[in-house]
């Protein structure tokens, strides 16, 4: 198990390194001069050069890449060129929104999607199944930003139950922060739940056909007992892989939903930084997003190995 862990961690590190290099060098050849953008259109050449020097833009790319990598470890990502604040701080501040949002949506979609998927599988071929899967089809097909907008119009503008957007830092007012995240989380989670419900159903229907379910029934378990005791855990294995992949989309989804709810998340940070040509912020924030995805996939792999004894064995238990 330890060996497996080390192997996978090395893989994660390598992935991140390559991702960092890719992001860095792609964005480094970018046309556009952050210094000029910051100083505006009437800036003098001397001022521009002074700022460039201050930002370290005059050093060779490899040196700057090295510095950035080091910074990732020390937590010193440099100063934002446009916002004049430590980038690490900016990112951390945004994470207090983006992380709870993405994880909240992951949890919520799981809590909704899996039970519905199981329910549908139990009623396979009956009305309930068809109804649930029809709903799931719609859930998958709805663009999430449009769904988010409908939620706002109904629950914020018309019913005024929840705020239409915005965010209050947790430290300031945890209850308000929580309330602010309810609609965005739902907007993100429901389409995901629809996907999960479908995947769960398919997986459980597959498992239900397998021999060991018949064995369980031969023991005297009823169909539903057999599904619950033996089917669900087995069916969860492929679902977990999908959930790992889905997390990447949740992260992507937060960027979209942030826009609808004017939330100060990582996505907004990136977009403001892009329009300010503040590549230092863009590259670090992008890497954080990619890092999140990679780490989640790693955790899913790990969980998989924990749940499935066959893998634990293969993993050199």
């Amino acid at each position, binding site marked *: 198990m330890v060996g*497996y862990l080390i192997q996978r961690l090395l893989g994660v590190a390598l992935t991140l390194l390559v991702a960092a290099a890719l992001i860095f060098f792609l964005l480094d050849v970018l046309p556009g001069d952050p210094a000029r953008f910051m100083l505006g259109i009437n800036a003098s050449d001397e001022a521009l050069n002074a700022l460039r020097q201050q930002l370290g833009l005059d050093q060779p790319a490899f040196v700057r890449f090295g510095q950035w990598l080091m910074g990732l470890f020390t937590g010193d990502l440099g100063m934002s060129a446009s916002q004049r604040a430590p980038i690490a701080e900016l990112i951390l501040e945004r994470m207090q929104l983006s992380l709870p949002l993405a994880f909240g949506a992951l949890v919520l979609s799981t809590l909704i999607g899996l039970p519905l998927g199981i329910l549908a599988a139990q009623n396979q071929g009956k009305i309930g199944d068809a109804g649930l899967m029809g709903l799931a089809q719609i859930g998958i097909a709805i663009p999430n930003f449009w769904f988010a907008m409908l939620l706002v119009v109904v629950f914020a503008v018309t019913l005024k139950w929840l705020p239409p957007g915005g965010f209050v830092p947790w430290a300031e007012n945890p209850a308000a922060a929580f309330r602010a995240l309810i609609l965005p989380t739902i907007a993100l989670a429901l389409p995901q739940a629809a996907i999960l419900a479908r995947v769960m159903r398919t997986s459980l229907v597959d498992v239900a056909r397998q021999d060991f379910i018949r064995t369980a029934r*031969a*023991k*005297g378990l009823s169909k539903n007992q057999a599904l619950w005791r033996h089917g669900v855990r087995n069916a969860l294995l492929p679902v977990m892989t999908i959930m790992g992949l889905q997390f990447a989309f949740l992260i992507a989804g937060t960027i979209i939903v942030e826009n609808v709810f004017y939330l100060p998340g990582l996505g907004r940070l990136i977009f403001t930084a892009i329009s300010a040509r503040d590549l230092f912020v863009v590259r670090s924030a992008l890497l954080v997003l990619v890092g999140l995805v990679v780490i989640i996939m790693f955790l899913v792999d790990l969980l998989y190995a924990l749940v499935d*004894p066959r893998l634990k*064995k293969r993993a*050199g238990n």
Partner: protein
Amino acid sequence: MSLASLENLSIRFGDRQVLSNINLRIEAGARVGLVGESGSGKSLTALSLMNLLPESAEASGVIHLNFGQHVKIDATQLGEDLPFPYRGAQIGMVFQEPMTALNPLMRIGDQIGEVLALHRPDLNTKAHIGQLLEEVDLRADMHRRYPHELSGGQRQRVGLAMALAGEPELLIADEPTSALDMITQRGVIDLIKRIASARQMGLLFISHDLGAVAALCDQIYVLEKGKLVEHGDSQTILKNPQQPYTQRLVAAAKPTKRPEFSRPAQREPLLEIDGLTRQFRQKRYFWQSPDITTAVDQVSFALHSGETLGLVGPSGCGKTSLSRMVAGLDSAQGGSVQFDGHRFGHGVGPIPMAARREISMVFQDPFSSFDPRMRMQDALLEPLHLMPELTTAQKQKRVHEAVQRVGLSIDMLNRYPHAFSGGQRQRLAIARAIVLKPKLLILDEPVSALDVSIRGDVLALLHDLQEKFGMAYLFISHDLDVVRAVTDRVMVMDHGKIVEHGKVEDVFDHPQAEITKKLLDARLTI
């Protein structure tokens, strides 16, 4: 009053009748066998007794159960809604596939404990589970293992322990040994026999293998295409089958030796294998030393034209690995092959094209040996890639010849594989193997996947072809009777090594190696 009986049981799927008017009874303590070809309805018969029929099945007839008290069940009522407290308690069942019949995520002790919790909560203790495991010849401390940590035979024993845990009066075993190798199969059959008599259980044993049924049962029911064609005392039926179908089954179970034919004497062997070795290494992490399985270990032998060399051995001993190296499909880690003036193998290089056209192979599974998306015509033309000197017409002609040789008609060639039966496909596989007119034909279990009734025909075909073309055969099989019937010499393989080698009669009649004796002992003859 019998323990369980079926009265006019019929089953339909939609408008397809798959079982009609089955009458079958199992007395308390009796061992009843049910035989028939694949798809004849054996499993459905068993499942109806368990009320586990597929939802789409429509059954009719009557089922009588008599566990202390007589119950009469109208078969049309079968289904999830019917109260059926007997499953796991009075009736235990073992299924065919040991690999998939157990929940892979649950320790086997817990899986057995589940039955106890349902039916005998008083006995749900570690000690009792250990006892059950020991009853099926497993160690009590294995209860902590997961299914994947057990071999196929061991898993099948766990399945048996599970079926026994509820202390059933009737045990149903649906082909519990067909997926196991000969030696293990024998062990499990003996175990079932021992337990059934010790516990005084009724037994319904299902198999397509007449030998297995004969070894275990005192009564036999024979199913053909959903109809009961014959039943009675097992000795009577085996000795004196009445129905033509049963007669065919019995005959096929005892293959007869084909007559010898004359072969030109030769000094030079066609094929000479020298110290061939194949290892599979599995490395998990780059810092670990790899796990090495030596599948073939320093194997040497020779084979002459027109000769048939048998290769037998327990499952996993390396037979397939060896044959693939000879065919040039796998590269060797040691040793070399000398074939008809060509040499290839470790340190020499891959098989040369010229040798490739002289070696062909017939595979075990007729269903997977043809590309389902390719017309037979094209599939059979494919080997002729190796003979670019032929014109299209000549190639065509070769294919037609080969097809006629195996007794099929040319106009079938436009069809896709799915339009052929298993036996026809195996004939076509042979046709494909001989379009090149090879000197060596490797046959890896060529008849194991075929129904017994077809086996004889295919073996006869192979014999005829050898007589006509003088090909050498390397014949791999786990069925010693078949091997004895068709080969001249035989090699016995174990753990990658050839442990015994000689004329087939000598080896089988006077086995020297331990494994040969075991294999011969495990034979289930009727």
